[in-house]
C-alpha cells in the first residue's frame, strides 16, 4: 500500500528532495561522494600524503590481509596496498581530464556549428561520427601504441578525439530541439543577436548539464581504458602502480585462492566507475525529465 499525503503548506526544499525516487537519491549521493573521494585521493597522492611509501617493500608482511598497520593489506612484496591504490589515481586522473576537455571543447564547437548551420555541417559531423564509430577504441589505441609509444596522455588524447563526434552530436541534437522552441524564435525576433542567444540561452542553461554528463561518463571511460591497457601491459609499467597492472600482478595468487591482491584494485575500479556512471545517469535523467 502506498500512502499519499496531502501537505497543508508548500513543501520545503528538504521535503522536495525527500520526494525523489529512492534510486535517484542513492545514485546522486553515491556518485557525488565517489567523485569527491577520487579528487581528494588524487590530490593527497600528489602531495604525497600517504599512509606508507608505495614503493617500500616489507618482505616480512607479504600478501597480508587488512590490519591496523596496512588498512588494505599488502601485496606480494609487502608494499602497502592502500598507498598504491591512492597513487594509482595518478595514472588516469589528469589524462582523463585531458580526454574529457578535448572532447568537450572541440565537440561543443562542432556541435554548435552543426546545430545552427545544419545545411553545411550536418553531413560533415555525421560522417566524422560514423568514421570514428567504426573503429573499436581499444584496437585503435593498440595501433597508436605500436606506432608511437605507450604514453597514457597520448592514448587518452586519442580517446578524447574519438569522443568528439559523440559530444558534438549530443549538443547538436539539443540545439536542434531548442531551435524549434518558440522562445528562441521570439528572442531573435525581438532583435537579440543570435550569438548572444546561443551563449546565454542555449549554452549556459543547457550546456552545463551536458558538460557534467560528458565529464562523468568520460572519466568513467578513461578509468576503464587506462586500467585495461595497463592490465594488458601497455600502459603504466611496474613499479609505478596502476589499478590495472595491480590486478594483473595478482593473477597467479588469485588462482591459488589468494583473491585479495587482485580484488582490492578491482574493487577500486568498480567503486569509482560505478560512482561516475550513477552520477552521469542521474544527471541525464534529470535533464531528460526537465528539458526534453
Amino acid at each position: 500500500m502506498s500512502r499519499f499525503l496531502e501537505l497543508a503548506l508548500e513543501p520545503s526544499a528538504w521535503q522536495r528532495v525527500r520526494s525523489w525516487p529512492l534510486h535517484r537519491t542513492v545514485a546522486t549521493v553515491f556518485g557525488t561522494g565517489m567523485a569527491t573521494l577520487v579528487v581528494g585521493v588524487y590530490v593527497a597522492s600528489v602531495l604525497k600524503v600517504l599512509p606508507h611509501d608505495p614503493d617500500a617493500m616489507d618482505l616480512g608482511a607479504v600478501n597480508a590481509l587488512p590490519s591496523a598497520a596496512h588498512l588494505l593489506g599488502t601485496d606480494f612484496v609487502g608494499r602497502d596496498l592502500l598507498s598504491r591504490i591512492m597513487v594509482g589515481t595518478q595514472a588516469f586522473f589528469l589524462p582523463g581530464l585531458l580526454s574529457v576537455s578535448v572532447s568537450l571543447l572541440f565537440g561543443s564547437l562542432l556541435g554548435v556549428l552543426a546545430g545552427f548551420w545544419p545545411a553545411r555541417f550536418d553531413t560533415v559531423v555525421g560522417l566524422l561520427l560514423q568514421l570514428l564509430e567504426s573503429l573499436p577504441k581499444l584496437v585503435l589505441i593498440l595501433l597508436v601504441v605500436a606506432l608511437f609509444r605507450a604514453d597514457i596522455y597520448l592514448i587518452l588524447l586519442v580517446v578524447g578525439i574519438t569522443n568528439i563526434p559523440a559530444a558534438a552530436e549530443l549538443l547538436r541534437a539539443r540545439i536542434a530541439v531548442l531551435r524549434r522552441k518558440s522562445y528562441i524564435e521570439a528572442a531573435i525576433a525581438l532583435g537579440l543577436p543570435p550569438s548572444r542567444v546561443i551563449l546565454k540561452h542555449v549554452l549556459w542553461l543547457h550546456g552545463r548539464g551536458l558538460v557534467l554528463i560528458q565529464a562523468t561518463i568520460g572519466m568513467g571511460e578513461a578509468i576503464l581504458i587506462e586500467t585495461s591497457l595497463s592490465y594488458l601491459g601497455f600502459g603504466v609499467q611496474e613499479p609505478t602502480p596502476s589499478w590495472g597492472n595491480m590486478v594483473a600482478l595478482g593473477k597467479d595468487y588469485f588462482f591459488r585462492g589468494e583473491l585479495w591482491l587482485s580484488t582490492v584494485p578491482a574493487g577500486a575500479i568498480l567503486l569509482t566507475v560505478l560512482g561516475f556512471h550513477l552520477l552521469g545517469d542521474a544527471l541525464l535523467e534529470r535533464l531528460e525529465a526537465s528539458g526534453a
Partner: protein
Amino acid sequence: MAEATPARPRPARREGEGAVLFVRDLRTYFYLPTRGRFLRAVDGVRLAVKEGETLVLVGESGSGKSVTVLSVMGLVTAAPGVVSGRIWYRPPGHEDPVNLLEGLERFARFTPGPPVGVEKDNRRWLKWHEAGMRERRGRDFAMIFQNPRNALHPYFTVGQQVSEVIRRRSPELSAGEAVAEARAWLAKVHLDAPAKRLGDYPHNLSGGMCQRVMIAMALAARPAVLIADEPTTGLDATIQSRVLDLMEEMKATLKTTTIVITHDMGVARRLADRVAVMYAGRVVEEGPAPDVLNGRYEIKHPYTHGLLYAIPSAGDIREKRRLGTIEGDVPDLSRLPAGCQFADRCGMKPPGREHLCDAEEPGLDAPVPGHRVRCWRHLRHPSEGGAAP
C-alpha cells in the same frame, strides 16, 4: 419473523434506470510529489447514458472530461488514479448492471479530509482491474481519440488494424473474411478506394482519412458503448464538418450508445441528445440538449451561460461587438476552494443568498426532472425552508 435481506445492496435503480452506463461519484486523483498535493482531475462525477442515446460531455481543457472516460475504460495507470466511485454497466440484453470498479475498496482507501488522504496499492489494483477490463475493451466499449494520425499504429496497415478488431470480436472468422468485413467498414465510413486503403499505412493518409479509419475500427467492434474523445479537434474546419456528417449518419443508422467529448459547442449541437457540462472535475449541469444549449432556458448554470454567450452570433460579428468572456481563470485543480468552484468567476449569484456560494458547494440536483444543475440559483439549501427559488 425475520425479513429476507438482499445478498448484496442493489444499485440505485431509480436513479440510473434504463441506463447502459451509470457513473456514480467517480474520483480520479493524481499525486504531485514535488508539491505534496493531489490533482483532483475527476472530483465526484455523476453521469448516466441511456441505450441508443448520445451524451456530449462539454468543458474546457482541464475540466476532467477525458480523464472521466479514461477512468471508465480503465486506462488510467498513474498513481493513485481512481480512488472511489461506482461505474455501473448494463451489458445489452442483461437485466442487472455490474460495477466495473468492483473491488476498488480492497485496494484503495479514500478520506475526503481536509486534508485529503489516499491509501492505494496501485500495482495490484491495476492487475486486478485489468483482468476484467481487458475483456470488455474492444467488445463492450470502443474508443476513438483525437490526433488520429498519432493514434493509429505506424507500423501496421489500415487493413491489419481494422481486421484485428474484427477478429477479436468474432474469432470464428477466417483471415480473409475479416479483411473483407474490414473493407466493408471502410466503405461504410466513406473512405475512398477502400480496397486500396487496406494496404496503406497511416502516414499515407490525411488526418481526416485517419479519423474515418478510427471510426471504422471502433464501430467494427460493434460496441455497446462508443466513446469519442475530441474526435474533431486537430482537424481542418472543413474536414471537421465532414467527420461530423459521418458521425451523424452513423448515429442515425447504427444507433450506438455514444459519449462524445468536446470543447466545441457546435459539435454538441449537432450530435447531442443530452449534454453534460463539466467544470473543475465535476458535472455542473446535465440535461436534454435543446434545453442545455438554449441560452434562454430558465434553468442554466452560470458557466454554461458564459460558454453559450461567448460564441458570437452573426449579428454580433456584423456589429463588431466585443466577445463575451468569462472573467477569471480555471482553478488550480490541486488547490480547490471550499464552496462553489465557480464562485469567484460567477456573475449570476442569487441575490440575497450569495453567502451560500462561498460557504458550501451545491449538489448536482434536479430542480426539474431530467435536468440537473449544481447551482444555488436553482436549488434550495436545507437550511432554507419553503419552495424552490
